């Protein structure tokens, strides 16, 4: 693996992200709207024991932030292909593996920045978090971002044009969000939806965050899976997606 290539791919993404200040603000708008507008409204309707609805969806909203940010970052590969920059990367003496790891890491960096920004709103939800919890959440968000970024990269190898972008948005990203245990527990879902949720990488990321953020340990609003399972799935899928991504990159280009 070429570390200098990985470094510069991450650096490029970071510089461009930081440059678009308006984009930074608007990407924060989505999770905050969901948290306070949707969550705020639904919390009047849904009153579980021991936890407010907004507190319940907080891990899921962090998941939403990471999902969108990571997927968009990986899908920029399609942009690069369309506008030619990808050729510059492909013709360089750099392994496909390094390119995929670099892209996944750059998605992680960008997602983490946004996740941390959303995380800082926890006092408004009545949650009490100490430094260890905050660090754990950041670490988890990093792992989940890497996993989703790698997933996005695998997806991006199948698409050539920018028009496919909206297809991805509607048919992949939104279902991934809704079937992740973000807005409602997985354990309460009907059969087919529960199956779909279990096949969704984001579910395990959101669930891991619930282990740290959700104040209840039992009952319907508690985490759906053991933490060890969550971590194992995320780690395993991350490796799997990176390997697949590198393989598909090789074949397609």
């Amino acid at each position, binding site marked *: 693996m070429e570390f200098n290539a990985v470094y*510069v791919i991450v650096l490029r993404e970071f510089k461009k992200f930081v440059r678009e200040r308006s984009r930074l603000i608007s990407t924060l708008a989505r999770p905050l709207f969901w948290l306070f507008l949707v969550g705020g409204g639904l919390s009047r309707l849904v009153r579980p024991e021991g936890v407010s609805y907004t507190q319940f969806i907080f891990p899921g909203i962090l998941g939403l932030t990471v999902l969108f940010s990571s997927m968009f970052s990986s899908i920029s590969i399609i942009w690069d292909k369309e506008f030619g920059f990808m050729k510059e*990367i492909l*013709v360089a003496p750099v392994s496909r593996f390094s390119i995929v790891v670099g892209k996944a890491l750059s998605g992680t960096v960008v997602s983490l920045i946004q996740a941390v920004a959303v995380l800082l709103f926890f006092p408004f939800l009545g949650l009490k978090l100490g430094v260890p919890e905050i660090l754990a959440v950041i670490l988890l968000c990093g792992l989940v971002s890497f996993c989703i970024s790698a997933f996005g990269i695998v997806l991006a190898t199948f698409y050539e044009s920018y028009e496919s972008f909206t297809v991805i948005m509607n048919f992949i990203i939104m279902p991934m969000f809704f079937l992740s245990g973000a807005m409602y527990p997985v354990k309460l879902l009907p059969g087919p939806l529960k199956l779909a949720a279990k096949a969704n990488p984001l579910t395990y990321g959101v669930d891991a965050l619930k282990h740290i953020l959700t104040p209840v340990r039992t009952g319907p609003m508690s985490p759906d899976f053991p933490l060890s399972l969550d971590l194992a799935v995320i780690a395993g899928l991350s490796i799997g997606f990176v390997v697949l991504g590198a393989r598909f990159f090789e074949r397609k280009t």
Partner: protein
Amino acid sequence: MSPAPIISVKRLVKKFGPITAVDDISFDVEEGTIFGFLGPNGAGKTTTINVLCTLQGPTSGWAFVAGHDCMMEPASVRKAIGIVFQDTTLDKDLTAYENLAFHAYLYSVPKAEIRPRSEDALRFVGLYERKDDLVKKFSGGMKRRLEVARGLIHRPRVLFLDEPTLGLDPQSRANLWEYIIRLPERHNVTVFMTTHYMEEAEVCERIAIIDHGKLIAEGSPEELKKTVGGDVVYLKTKDNEKAKAEIKRLFEIEAQERDGELYLTVQRGDTYIPLLISGLAGTVLSVRQERPTLNDVFLKFTGKAIRDVEETEAGTIKEEVRAYRRRH
């Protein structure tokens, strides 16, 4: 004993399904020269460059660059080459300097060298003052110059230029040629260029003419023009048929007719013209002379002018290849 060629292509064939884009071509390029691949659009130039740059593998045949086999040792080839593609491959949201630095990192240029080399490259193409400007603000000519600068950062042995002045205005083109000409001597690099502009091919020390995937002719522009046989003198007369017969009788030359003009090829046009005018005794209406151009060379070998080919078939071959690639 001449040194080994820096580029060596032997019996290269590249097919896209039923379409043969490159049909059994062979040629060598000597190190430190500017070599041109001249041909109309769709002739197979870009495909050949893609194979040499390891972006595609050949269907059969061999291609060697800087001593490495393009198919077997692509990584080694890539380290030794720089490429400026037909379409821009710059990141428009980064600055000129950042684009060069990115390239430097990608090609493992030692960290301490990245800044000095990038700045030197920018100075060489006259873009140093704009180094911190975003590339999206650059004109087409500036972008092309920046790409040439970028291609040199890692000190390649060969720089590939695919239609370097395509789409540029005449001033930018002339400007870019000035940099291209200095490349071998200033940067110790061999230049391999494809083009369909004849004036551009004149800049090269050696050229190969390609059409329909086949190599038609090879040599220096001077050598190739000599094969046309000399200067072409064009005459308009009161009676072309009669003049033709007179020319045959007086000079034993077969004149030909095209677009109402007679034309004949002679060694020294400037000395022949007075002879023709006096020989045809007042029937000459106008006369002009043209030195042979590469278009004449192309015409001689293929029976068509480069421009005519472009307007008709060549475009469709390119489209067919593109469509095939999109499907597979």
